[in-house]
């Protein structure tokens, strides 16, 4: 084989490998970012944090309902589900769960209404979060959202039982069930909110293990850059070699291949914009989750202060409700009412960023198309010169 033919053969082989490597790294980079952006992990995190906030609010509202209306005859949250009113009782003829007013019309207490709304919101968001859960493969309980759903059913039953006993005028047993419900909600190791917190942490762990947050993104970037520069350098080198060896103008097919490689680079680069959007969405989501966590704590503090007021008359004297109440109830003086959640604008921004992060995902088809076209042009550009040397020993 002649030296020129061998050089041409080698140039073609090296260029083919370079274009193939460029295709692989471009695809890795592009899909790595967009597959993470396409996942529902961020949505699941937002939904779980929303469930936690709704449940903390519902628990506080349940306590407030009984605190304000603990006298006999008041049903409280969930009473309608506990037992149907009997004819002839104070509730006869009252539909739904309202409290009978002196005039016979029904009046739904704001706190009771808040309890119902928040439980409904939590139930819907929990179901959506279970659909969006992507972190099945993260170590730990993968079905903690299902567990939270089961525990929520127990919680609402306890509140219903509390309502039933308050309705009968049995404040002691009513308070016992309400205390049990509140413990189930807030228990620091096995409560519903802790279970949801674990589920949320699982989504974060999954996100941290995904392409854009790991060494893979940096490695893919370096490899992609090297492949791109190598391919361009090889294409330029081949042009120079052909020009010198064959004394001709620029090879048009190789020139087109060079242009396609540049277009391929341009088509891959949105991965960085999408990655930046994803980063920003993650940062904003963390801010929202932190704000909601603070909201949950504020609801817990306020609810505990209310629950202490409800339990003290049951125990007889304040501070004599036994070791469990003393240990678990966080009673502080002058607890401010929990702030109204104001994360709506930021959540909208998160959604915009997530939309932006997936905007270019459809361009993925260009990567194999451009790579294949560039490869074909490289072969087509070099092949005629190789043919010229087929039977020419030198």
């Amino acid at each position, binding site marked *: 084989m002649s030296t020129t033919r061998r050089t041409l053969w080698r140039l073609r082989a090296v260029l083919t490998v370079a274009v193939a490597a460029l295709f692989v790294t471009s695809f890795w980079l592009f899909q790595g970012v967009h597959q993470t952006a396409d996942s529902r992990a961020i949505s699941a995190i937002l939904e779980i944090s929303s469930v936690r906030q709704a449940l903390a609010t519902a628990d506080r509202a349940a306590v407030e309902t009984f605190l304000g209306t603990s006298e006999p005859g008041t049903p409280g949250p969930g009473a309608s589900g506990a037992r149907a009113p009997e004819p002839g009782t104070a509730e006869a003829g009252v539909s739904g769960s309202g409290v009978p007013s002196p005039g016979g019309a029904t009046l739904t207490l704001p706190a009771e209404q808040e309890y119902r709304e928040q439980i409904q919101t939590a139930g819907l968001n929990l179901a959506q979060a279970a659909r969006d859960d992507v972190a099945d493969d993260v170590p730990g309980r993968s079905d903690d959202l299902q567990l939270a759903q089961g525990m929520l059913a127990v919680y609402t039953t306890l509140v219903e039982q509390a309502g039933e006993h308050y309705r009968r005028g049995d404040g002691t047993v009513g308070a016992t*069930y309400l205390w049990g419900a509140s413990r189930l909600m807030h228990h620091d190791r096995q409560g519903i909110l802790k279970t949801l917190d674990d589920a949320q942490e699982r989504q974060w762990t999954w996100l941290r293990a995904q392409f854009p947050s790991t060494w893979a993104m940096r490695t893919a970037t370096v490899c992609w850059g090297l492949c791109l520069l190598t391919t361009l350098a090889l294409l330029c080198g081949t042009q120079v070699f052909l020009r010198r060896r064959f004394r001709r103008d620029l090879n048009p097919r190789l020139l087109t291949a060079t242009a396609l490689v540049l277009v391929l680079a341009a088509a891959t680069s949105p991965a960085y914009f999408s990655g930046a959007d994803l980063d920003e969405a993650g940062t904003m989501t963390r801010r929202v989750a932190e704000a909601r966590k603070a909201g949950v704590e504020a609801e817990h503090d306020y609810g505990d202060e209310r629950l202490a007021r409800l339990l003290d008359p049951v*125990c007889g004297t304040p501070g004599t409700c036994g070791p469990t109440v003393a240990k678990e109830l966080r009673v502080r003086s002058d607890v401010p009412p929990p702030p109204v959640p104001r994360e709506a604008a930021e959540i909208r921004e998160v959604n915009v960023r997530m939309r932006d992060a997936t905007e270019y995902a459809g361009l993925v088809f260009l990567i194999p198309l451009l790579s294949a076209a560039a490869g074909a042009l490289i072969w087509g550009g070099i092949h005629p010169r190789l043919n010229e040397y087929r039977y020419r020993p030198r």
Partner: protein
Amino acid sequence: MRRRTLHRVTTRIVAGLALLGATVCATACAPLPGGRTVSVLATWTGTEAEHFGKVLAAFEDRTGIHVEYTGTRAIDETLRSDLRGGTPPDIAILPSTGDLAQYAHSGDLLPLDGVVSRQDQYGRPWLLRLNRKVYAVPFKVNLKSLVWYDRSRWRPSPQEMRDPLSLRTGGRARSVWCLGMQALRSAGWPGTDWIEDILLHQVGPEKYRKWASGTLAWTSDEVRQAWETWGRILDASGLDRQGRRVALLTDFSEAGLGLFGDPPGCLLEHQASFVIVTYPSGRDVDFFPFPSLPSGKGGAVRRSVVVSADFAGMFNATPQAKELMRFLAGDEAQRIWPAIPAGAAFSANLGVPPDVHSVKDPVGRKVADTLDGAAMVCLDASDLMPPALRDAFGDAVIEYLSAPERLPDLLTELDRVQDRVKNRWRPNEQERKDLLSFSCPGPLNRPGRPIRPAKPNGVTP
């Protein structure tokens, strides 16, 4: 030309060998069906989970199979949601045999015949049998009929140990009994333990069996008498109205801490053997067995005990799950936890003698001896009841503690719940017989220990 041909042949041989190697590896290194893991769900968390972890570690070392363990107190909800989602754990270990029986009836719980081959390791009634098939084996037994006290604070006299109605504080504490009815998702069960113990020790195992299996009415004289006796014991011990309310709000795991106060808040705690793990370490605790109580119609019933047990059942019949079931049922696994000092675990496996408990754990050894010395061992009746009745029992305890005068209404309501439950699941004749014999499996009768003569009704004189 010859060199090129040689090169081509060599390349093809190398490629062929590589392909062959890859195929062999893909076949040989492929995981077993279901992977080399087995999932286990149980109630143990914290220290208990650490102890159980030692059992699982021994299994992993021996088989190389990885165990994914989940411990949660909300095991009923977890298992139900897992089953609903079609992803049950391979093995679940739960105390509520009533639930296990229902899961066996529905086909979710799989039979162990052919999996646990050495069933003679257990006294026959100790294996949960339904329709002549074994569905669960006891892994950890807890002795319930115990009364705990701190010897450094107070020691009851023999008369006080025999007659709980004679117990008085004598100014030493606010109340004789430490009482806590709260539990994270099933309040009231410590009170159900009281009723079960009193009933068993007043009227004996036969009536207890009938009551546990739903054939003795809640409004019967025997059951009503047990509730009233509990009320009298609490009244006599100085537990006032406020004390009862505090008991309603106190978690069972914290009630006993009153034993160790200075002065103590209470003197005695009626609680199962597992309560040891909640006591501060280094305290001089001791117990005496729940005393026999004279009933209105006859003499006292002696040496019967109530136990609860965590039963292991299989929900997925993978090779790994079968392997772990075999291991958990065997005496090697059943020795590990009891051998841990203050581990508060006991075994119904006949191959695990009481001396497996460390000499550093005299209380554990004494519990094991008490269990072995019992003439009749009955399972916690509330664990045998269907979940709805069990919950209603706990609710009734709470209401009774708050307003004892409501007892007749509460018992009538419990009868009503029992009727409703019967309508939902009607065990056939064989299942009824199985559950009846299972409620009081009898003495352990370990080899080498004298078997006590028992009357036909199981009561040892």
